[in-house]
């Protein structure tokens, strides 16, 4: 559905997107992860036909966005991270306006508006001025707007940003609904746990480059060479830490919740050896657990050293 090849966007000497490649199959949900200013919004704007790339190719449904921008735009529904609304329009007038923009005939507009307001749970607000809606409702209205022409590809830039926990849950439910409708979705978010739950694949972008791409499991497998071990001791914590520091397979050691947490590289045999040494030294080990590295920590590891900037 979406294929990006060697996409580059430069602003003078600064490179916002650097040879980015990615592909999303039809009906898949692709989570776009990256720090602020990593190049997510720039990439999404290029795909939405709002920004001219310096070089590279973007194909939507096999059609080049630069060759036939208007044809491609009909296939895309875009929800930006920051957007404004017309204060002096009512909710149904707002939807009617965008239906007009997409050339939807008058006779069909009412039914489409009803259906979409129902989807985003705003039917009861249709006669309210857009300005009077809460932030979460405005986000949902903007999502309904992006669906007005029944696009096959949805580009959602931080759809849950600035929302309270309840509004986030509501937004998540709508996105699940869209997934059931078999829409192809490119979504960016800072909340990695949310993305890992609903996305079929994830791309991690840092300083304009795609540093990892694949399913959540693939990324974890490929990048989590190290795992973490959590050790609880009754006392003699200093001795335990000293002993762990002597082991070549143990990396960074932290203390959290009165337990020792350390990154570890090695197999089960090495792990058993460490436990044995702790016990033979007479350290009272209460628990000894190996935990997988979280997506957050993988992300932090991958994007280490990247600076934030506004894109």
């Amino acid at each position, binding site marked *: 559905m979406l294929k990006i090849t060697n996409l580059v966007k430069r602003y003078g000497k600064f490179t916002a997107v650097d040879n980015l490649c990615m592909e999303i199959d039809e009906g898949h949900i692709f989570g776009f992860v990256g720090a602020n200013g990593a190049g997510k919004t720039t990439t999404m704007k290029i795909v939405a036909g*709002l920004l001219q790339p310096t070089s590279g190719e973007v194909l939507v449904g096999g059609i080049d966005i*630069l*060759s036939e921008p208007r*044809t491609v735009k009909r296939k895309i529904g875009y929800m930006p991270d920051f957007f404004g609304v017309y204060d002096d329009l009512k909710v149904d007038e707002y939807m009617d306006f965008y239906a007009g*923009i*997409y050339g939807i005939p008058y006779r069909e507009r009412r039914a489409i508006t009803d259906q979409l307001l129902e989807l985003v749970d705003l039917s009861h607000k249709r006669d309210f001025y857009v300005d009077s809606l809460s932030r979460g409702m405005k986000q949902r209205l903007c999502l309904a707007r992006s669906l007005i022409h029944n696009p096959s590809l949805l580009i959602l830039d931080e759809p849950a940003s600035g929302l309270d926990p309840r509004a986030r849950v509501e937004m998540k439910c709508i996105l699940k609904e869209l997934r059931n409708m078999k829409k192809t979705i490119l979504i960016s978010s800072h909340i990695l746990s949310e993305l890992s739950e609903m996305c079929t694949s994830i791309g991690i972008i840092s300083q304009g480059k795609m540093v990892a791409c694949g399913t959540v499991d693939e990324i974890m497998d490929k990048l989590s060479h190290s795992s973490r071990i959590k050790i609880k001791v009754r006392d003699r914590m200093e001795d335990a830490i000293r002993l762990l520091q002597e082991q070549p397979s143990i990396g960074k050691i932290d203390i959290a919740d009165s337990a020792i947490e350390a990154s570890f590289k090695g197999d089960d045999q090495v792990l058993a050896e460490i436990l044995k040494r702790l016990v033979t030294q007479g350290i009272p080990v209460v628990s000894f657990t190996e935990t997988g590295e979280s997506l957050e920590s993988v992300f932090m590891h991958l994007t280490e050293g990247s600076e934030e900037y506004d894109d």
Partner: protein
Amino acid sequence: MINPILEKDLKTKMRGWRTPVLLSIYLLFLGGVLFLFFLANNQIFVYYTDTAFNPRVAVSAYNVIAMFQFVLLMLIVPAITATAISGERERQTLDLMLCSDISTWSIIIGKLIVSIAHIMLLVVASLPVMGTVFLFGGITFGEIILMFLFYVITALMVASLGIFLSTLFRKNVTAIIATYICLGILALGPVIAFFIWGVFFQRSYNVEITYSLLTAFLFPSPGYGFASFFAGTQSNLFGTIFNEIQHLAEKETNFLRYLKPWMINGLFNIIFSGILISLSAWKLQPVKKRKRKA
């Protein structure tokens, strides 16, 4: 199907309090000017005095009103149009429009028609005020209609200029100021250029000022086009200048003698508007189309 931008903007502009207030102030202002003019010329209380009514005062009143209206249009149109695109950008709604498949031409034309319709509302609403001069005679209905047409063409040019600069600049304030500056240059620039030419060249080479020469310098200035509608007396500076232009036109031997200043300026306005609208539509395109690979 009606242009959706036109439909939406007309709906929201007419719904608020701004339009009726603006219209009321505009009409009160024009009416006030007319009242003060008659008052100053002792024509208001003519029935209570023995003074006879002077019809020439009505013609002068028409000139004053026409000129006031022209200047007001020049001041109001930039304020309305120069925020057309930059306002959408500031409100963060422009991207939502540009990511759709609507053409940038439709956006620009929609915005242009809204602006002109707004201005025309003011002009049409002021017709009864203008019509008061009919009570006294001296001005024909045809002349008022022609002037109305000239207002439309001038408003089109000013609106196109405002929209173009609104496309060029990101902020409303910058776009508005730039429009006023450009309009000032367009209105006064040719006149200043003509005077400079007169001081440095005309005196040295003793070139006779003709209608063609005058037109060659002044054709872009809206004030020059307006000269055709100053039905006038020679009692003031403008009357003298405009009458002089008429005399020069009558002396002209080539086809230009049939072209009045409003026609020449109007033609320039139409061509200039076309260029500005095309440039605006091109500039607004977020992505420039690439030729398909063979």
